[in-house]
């Protein structure tokens, strides 16, 4: 979608457009941005210059978008993208897991997904990062308890494995599984703090 050799003027215009669209509801802003980029990316520098003149001032485009979007009218602005909602949802994502294990974070992520305050890609990143971090942690721990075949080392270089320590052992798994889960959850909780803070900053900058 993005062209690495497109004219500098196009990049500059898209940056101005991004800044101007800051107050426009995210899904509308995304549509406008994608539509303009799609059009400008297909043109050579001269044609792109002419098209930019045709498109006009990004501030005007954004003002039109705000005026034509019912949900952007102040009295009809949904509570789901108000500043208090953004703060509560972000804090629930960041610290919910410490207040009510699992469920607290789940509430935060549901609040985030139903809100138009964040763009879709931001929601995906915020969801995938903690889950991915937890998965990688659990995978790592399990691999340290799977024998490489020589009886002394695991599949993870540098991590030895003693007799009876193998994950596949009948009793060891009972002890080891909660340990893996606890470590994975700890990493998830740290990642939640990071993405919760990130979500808070991004949404408040736009609101």
């Amino acid at each position, binding site marked *: *979608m993005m062209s690495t050799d497109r004219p500098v003027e196009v990049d500059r215009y898209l940056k101005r457009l991004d800044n101007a669209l800051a107050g426009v509801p995210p*899904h*509308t802003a995304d*549509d*406008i941005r*994608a*539509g*303009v980029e*799609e*059009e400008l*990316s*297909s043109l050579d520098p001269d044609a792109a210059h002419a098209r930019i003149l045709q*498109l*006009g001032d990004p501030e*005007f*485009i*954004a*003002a*039109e*978008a705000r*005026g*034509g*979007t*019912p949900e952007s009218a102040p009295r009809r602005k949904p509570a789901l993208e108000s500043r208090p909602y953004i703060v509560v949802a972000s804090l629930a994502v960041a610290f919910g897991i410490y207040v009510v294990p699992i469920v607290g974070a789940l509430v935060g992520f549901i609040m985030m997904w139903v809100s138009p305050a964040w763009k879709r890609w931001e929601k995906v990143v915020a969801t995938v990062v903690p889950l991915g971090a937890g998965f990688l942690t659990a995978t790592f721990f399990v691999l340290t308890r799977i024998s490489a075949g020589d009886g002394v080392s695991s599949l993870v270089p540098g991590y030895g494995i003693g007799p009876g320590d193998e994950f596949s052992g009948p009793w060891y798994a009972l002890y080891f599984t909660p340990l893996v889960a606890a470590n994975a959850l700890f990493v998830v909780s740290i990642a939640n703090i990071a993405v919760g803070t990130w979500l808070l900053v991004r949404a408040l900058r736009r609101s």
Partner: protein
Amino acid sequence: MIVPVGAQLRKGVAEYCILGSLSREPMYGWQLAEALAQPGLIASIGTLYPILSRLRERGLITAFEQDTGPGPVRKYYRLTDAGERELNGFREQWMPFVTAVTEMVGEVGDDEH
């Protein structure tokens, strides 16, 4: 003082002009913007996309991506069956409406003798 009714009129009919354009063929954003901006039905691309969002939310149009050969992959919009019905409903009302309003307000030059 002349009341600036143009903007309100445009706002009212722009949705149906988009439906009408899409009833002929699927179109992408800039194509629609040019078609509507030329006769002054929208002021800019910033007017177009909120309307497209509303029409999609109401299920009157859908979007799909299409490879345009050497050009970029473009997002095209096309009319749904519900959009076709909505457009037909508007078509049935539009001419009687125009006739009625024209009879009431007259035409430019009617008062000149």
